[in-house]
């Protein structure tokens, strides 16, 4: 199997529609190496252990811990063989073969029955809140353009029910200290890992990020314990380096994060950043107040529980007095194979509740799609299960794991994806733009596969 490079991904996109993808540029100097299969034997264990640890640390510190994963049935789900006895048996063949007069038996109609297909129309009473991220000069910020998410009046990409005013966008993760990353991801950022501002630039200019999520993980008391005041200097650098709207995350430490996000809110006054995140088990009110006082947006994060999501949103609205246009939700993302069914259904229920008129749940949704890299299928070299069929090259498995996780959740209503692998970003955007009606053209004859040889 060949290697896949980001150029190839972007090449794929180039064919379809340059205009709508103008944020993606293909640079000649971009060099993305796909890792060769051979890791020296004696280092394999150490290497794999490092990767595992890295992924785990990454998930934790990136505030993207897999949430309340629940139901994965071991009992059901595959096609069940059924008892043939329960099904009507076809007539024995030989009987038909000896029937000489077959035509009268069937009475074939001369003409097709005429029919008109009338698709059922569905209208929802509710509408998902529109949320503006970032602020341009005229609104007191310095962003080049704002990003607007939400505004849906139908299920995602059901353009035949209602137009979708804003298609989902992608934010790329940036960290304020060298983070632990899966190797397939890290190799795309190797040259910028020490400089968050350069990192953000690369993500925007080369990988087409619509926004940047800056994770201030160095503030973690278990790591450098960088004081909030000092940590947010990086935010200033990033605001200078790129013109896209910014999302700021803490370390996931429930005690420290409110202070860090407060300082971030102060320093980014006027920029309408998103503070990530407020959770039920921390001082959410402080974060809400920081957003209110400095004109920012809050990410309301709960662990895969629609009722908790409703509760936290109500707190933010009713107790903290936030405006609905300043809230985005993160109902928690679990990876394909690791609770994705729960994440999907939780989000789908939230979205449908919002559309049906529950204003406590009618907010745009964000997904920590990078979580997909926590799945062993995304990063492990081979299957640890002896009887498994070959898993194939992981450099191709990893990105598709992130893509399929994101694609699935896009169909549940996610408006904002936080991602890392540039190839995954490009492909997910491509499919969302396609479903959103922004990509023209088609193949000449979609039935050609029926006759193709080889």
């Amino acid at each position, binding site marked *: 199997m*060949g290697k896949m490079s980001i150029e190839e991904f972007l*090449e794929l996109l180039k*064919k*379809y529609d340059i205009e709508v993808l103008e944020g993606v540029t293909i640079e000649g100097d971009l060099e993305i190496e796909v890792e060769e299969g051979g890791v020296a034997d004696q280092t394999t264990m150490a290497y*794999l252990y490092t990767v*595992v*640890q890295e992924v*785990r640390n990454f*998930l934790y510190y990136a505030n993207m811990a*897999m949430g*309340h*994963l*629940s*139901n*994965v*049935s*071991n009992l059901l789900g595959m096609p069940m*063989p*059924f008892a*043939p006895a329960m099904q009507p048996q*076809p007539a024995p*063949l030989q009987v038909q073969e000896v029937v000489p007069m077959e035509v009268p038996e*069937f*009475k074939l*109609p001369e003409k*097709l*029955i*005429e*029919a008109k*297909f*009338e*698709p*059922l129309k569905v209208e929802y009473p509710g509408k998902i809140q529109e949320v503006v991220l970032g602020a341009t000069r005229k609104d007191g910020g310095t962003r080049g353009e704002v990003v607007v998410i939400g505004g849906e009046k139908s299920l995602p990409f059901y*353009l*035949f029910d209602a137009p979708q005013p804003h298609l989902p966008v992608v934010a790329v993760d940036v960290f304020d200290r060298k983070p632990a990353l899966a190797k397939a991801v890290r190799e795309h950022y190797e040259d910028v890992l020490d400089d968050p501002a350069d990192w953000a630039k690369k993500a925007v200019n080369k990988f087409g990020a619509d926004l940047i999520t800056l994770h201030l993980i160095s503030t973690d008391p278990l790591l450098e314990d960088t004081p909030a005041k000092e940590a947010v200097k990086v935010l200033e650098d990033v605001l200078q380096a790129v013109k896209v709207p910014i999302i700021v995350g803490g370390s996931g430490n429930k005690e420290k994060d409110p202070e860090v996000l407060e300082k971030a809110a102060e320093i980014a006054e006027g920029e309408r950043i998103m503070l990530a995140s407020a959770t039920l088990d921390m001082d959410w009110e402080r974060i809400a107040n920081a957003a209110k006082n400095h004109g920012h947006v809050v990410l309301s994060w709960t*662990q895969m529980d629609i009722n908790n999501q409703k509760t936290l949103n109500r707190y933010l609205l009713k107790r903290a007095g936030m405006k609905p246009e300043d809230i985005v939700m993160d109902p928690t993302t679990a990876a*394909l*194979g690791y*609770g*994705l069914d729960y994440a*999907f*259904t939780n989000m*789908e*229920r939230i979205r*449908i509740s919002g559309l049906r008129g529950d204003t406590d749940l009618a907010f745009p949704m964000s997904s920590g799609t990078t979580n997909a890299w926590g799945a062993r299928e995304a990063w*492990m070299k081979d*299957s640890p*299960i002896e*009887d*498994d069929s070959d898993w*194939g090259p992981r450099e191709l*498995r990893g990105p598709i794991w992130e893509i*399929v996780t994101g694609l699935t959740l896009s*169909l549940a209503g996610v408006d904002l994806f936080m991602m890392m692998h540039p190839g995954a970003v490009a492909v997910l955007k491509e499919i969302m733009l*396609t*479903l959103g009606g922004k990509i*023209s053209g088609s*193949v000449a004859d*979609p039935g050609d596969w029926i006759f*193709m040889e080889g």
Partner: protein
Amino acid sequence: MKVKSPLEVYKFLPQTNCGECGFDTCMSFAAHIIDRSVKPEDCPPLIKDSEKDEKIKKKLEQLIELTSPEIAEVIIGKGDAAVKIGGEDVLHRHEMTYFNPTAFFYDVWDTMNEKDLEVRCKKVVEYRKFYVGKFLTLDGFAVRCTSNNPDTYRNVVKKVASYGKPMILISMDPECMRAALEEVADTKPLIYAATESNWREFLELALKYNVPVTVRAKDLNMLKSLAATFKNAGVNEIVLDPVTEPLGEGLKGTFERVVNLRRTGIQGEDRDIAYPVMITPIAAWMIEGDDVEKTYWETILASLFIVKYGDVMIFRSLEPYSVMPTITLRFNIYTDPRTPVQVEPGLRPIADPDENSPVFITTNFALTYYTVESDLTSANIKSWLLVLDTGGLGVEVSVAGGQFTAGKVKDLIKETGIEEKVNHKILVLPGLAARLQGAIEDEAGWTVKVGPMDSGRIKGWLETNWPPE
């Protein structure tokens, strides 16, 4: 299904609470008809009486009609390997569950050389991916006629049939199709496809050989027209192919057609199109690009329509990086959200352990448990596995959320009597629970070693850490 409450079903039952069905009461049986875990035909007295009494027979038929799924079920293949598609009742899985997972068929063609054909068929038959306590597998073959020669096609179809998997027969030419059906009609293949131009010949074939048939049209009026005509002529097993267009506006249109078909079938109660939907991710091979790009795009088309109403699919790529995500997604989406997610807490012996074997601990979240259990079993690691009741949460989340605590570990050690089964007091903690190391040592009085982050690495970890010094 037209009825929503057990009471509506109860009216049709004998109401004797005889228990022959395995449930204590007729009301309980009725509730299980509503959740579709049983069918009216599973009531023995009802079946028996309907054979004698015309009135009861009518009642039974009425009940079957009322409780049959909104989307018709179609069976492809015969015997143990047969696959059931369609039969769905809801538009969103949380409204009940999806029932029959998207069936995956893999493309072969009759101008392939013999060796390639054999390799490819074997790959399909042998594919296995371990997941949550079982192996996921692929469903069958889509055999295309590229030779336009009835004899060639007949021979290849016969060869493919010998692998014992369900088949979709693909040819637009009725004579090629007839040749194949003469050979394998008794294996109940799905034939593909009846269109505006060949429908009469295909209708005849479907009736004559009593096989399920795909009707294909991009125009949904035509698709409905074809389905209605076939139904009216006596074909009951119909699959709709609204034509998968792989790119751009074409793909957007495909998405619209598929959603509209399913929604109008279930919610709009249009019986004429309430059939399973065929999606052909293989159409991605019509786009320009190299094999990796095509395979990626095929994976994407499949994923999109696994989530949205594709009941049967035809694939080209057998690359693991394409099969693994789609087969996993299928499992996830078709998992019954109503079933419990937990396994019993307690102590599990792995590979016949003894008093010197290491003791591991994990949580009772089904996915976590089966992953750890299979990793230990697969590597044949003699060990004891403690399963902690975290309310069905994984290790990382339950440590953070306070369901995985030192106190509970101590209780579990006591309750399971593991202290009498081993001659040491060393517990191997999941790497993801490392922060509990000190607390557990204090509470339980055991030595706690921090194991690897992923249970797939336990084997290597033991090499340097077990037996302890």
